[in-house]
């Protein structure tokens, strides 16, 4: 299973692998929002956690369809399904690869991009922590959505329609925790909820995603 993780990581950094695209998208969102909202530092600082969270979520969404689609098209998903690797394990490894390539860079970059939106000092730390806790859930939920739509010709748009409502709780608790933390309020509850959603997603969704993949391969 580690081999699968290593292969996916290797593929993502090779030509056409799309590494960094999500990050670039995230940067562009963080630059465009001030253009739309205006340069007042106060307003920007206030909406920054929400914008960064939405931006990270959309950047994550961009690369979701690649999680299984390419493997489905070139037949390696068929071969993986007959290999001595449990499908659930393969799903976890693929989601982990997606997180390492997309979620983790976003988490690391968010405090930096927060500076673009005049975010004040403790805010950086809160962005980092909430995204670190929340983005694994985004990758895992996304992998589930990708597994549902893997057999479809134009699955990309449908995938967004399926996955975005599932992202609602993560987004609400994540952004709420960041906002509260930044304002110096108690952020324990939303933080725990984000962690809980991530833990629950990683524990349970691989089974749903693997079931969806098996159904799609039939």
């Amino acid at each position: 299973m580690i081999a699968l993780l290593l292969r996916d990581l290797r593929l993502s950094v090779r030509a056409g692998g799309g590494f960094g695209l999500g990050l670039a998208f995230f940067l562009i969102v963080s630059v465009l929002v001030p253009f739309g909202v205006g340069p007042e530092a106060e307003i920007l600082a206030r909406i920054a956690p929400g914008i960064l969270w939405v931006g990270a979520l959309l950047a994550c969404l961009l690369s979701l369809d690649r999680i299984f689609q390419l493997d489905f098209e070139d037949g390696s998903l068929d071969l993986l399904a007959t290999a001595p690797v449990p499908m659930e394990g393969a799903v976890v490894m693929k989601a982990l690869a997606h997180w390492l390539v997309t979620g983790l860079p976003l988490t690391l970059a968010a405090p930096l991009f927060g500076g673009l939106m005049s975010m004040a000092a403790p805010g950086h730390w809160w962005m980092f922590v909430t995204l670190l806790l929340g983005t694994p859930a985004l990758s895992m939920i996304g992998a589930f959505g990708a597994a549902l739509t893997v057999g479809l010709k134009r699955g990309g748009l449908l995938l967004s329609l399926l996955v975005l409502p599932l992202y609602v709780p993560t987004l609400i608790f994540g952004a709420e925790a960041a906002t509260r933390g930044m304002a110096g309020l108690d952020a324990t509850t939303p933080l725990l909820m984000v962690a809980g959603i991530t833990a629950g997603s990683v524990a349970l969704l691989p089974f749903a995603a693997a079931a969806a993949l098996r159904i799609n391969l039939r």
Partner: protein
Amino acid sequence: MESTRTKQAKDRWNWLWEWANPVKFMALSGKALPWVIGLTVISLTVGLVWGFFFTPEAINFGSSVKIIYVHVPSAMMAINIWVMMLVASLIWLVRRHHVSALAAKAAALVGVVMTVIALITGAIWGEPMWGTYWAWDPRLTSFLVLFLFYLGYMALWAAIEDPDTAADLTSVLAIVGSVFALLSRYAVNFWNQGLHQGASLSLDKEENVADVYWQPLVICLAGFVLLFIALLLVRTRTEVRKRRIHALEMRERMADA
């Protein structure tokens, strides 16, 4: 020639008819449908006419309050239909009863219409009550999210060609979606405490609406439940027939090959 062949095929499949759910379903639902439709018409007419024309105007709200006779039942059905879809999906996954999967599919459109009615009547009611058509009130927001879940569910049904695959995948989505819909409800509550009044129909609470309003409301609720059952039966019957056509077309194609 054609008819004898069909007859033979039927004879050969006779043993299957014993426990063939779709067949039994079609027979039973065909008989029940006129009764359900009749009851629906009666209860909705009585409930709505009573509610609209024979209840006093509320002191604070004027006649706008009467929209509860549509708003509350549709909101209740919007949630209950999703629960029904979840149960039907589970039955399909466990027992592989096709009618169950098709009923879930048939219910989705009714559910989404109920959600839209609840949202629109809520907006119309919200204007005189809160002075705005839309507020990010937790309950309104939850319904908006529920609407998105319905859309995704229906889009997935529509996107997949093979009916069994579609039934399987939408069932998985319904299960996962239910968990996340509940989470969203909790999240939205947490996110904004809201202006909505408490549930209009909790039996043990003081804030219950007065009896004069309550009695026609119960009849309307029953009417909406019956309306859903009637629509569900009609739509499921259509789905069963469509499925049958699909099966026949597949056989035809295979016979040609």
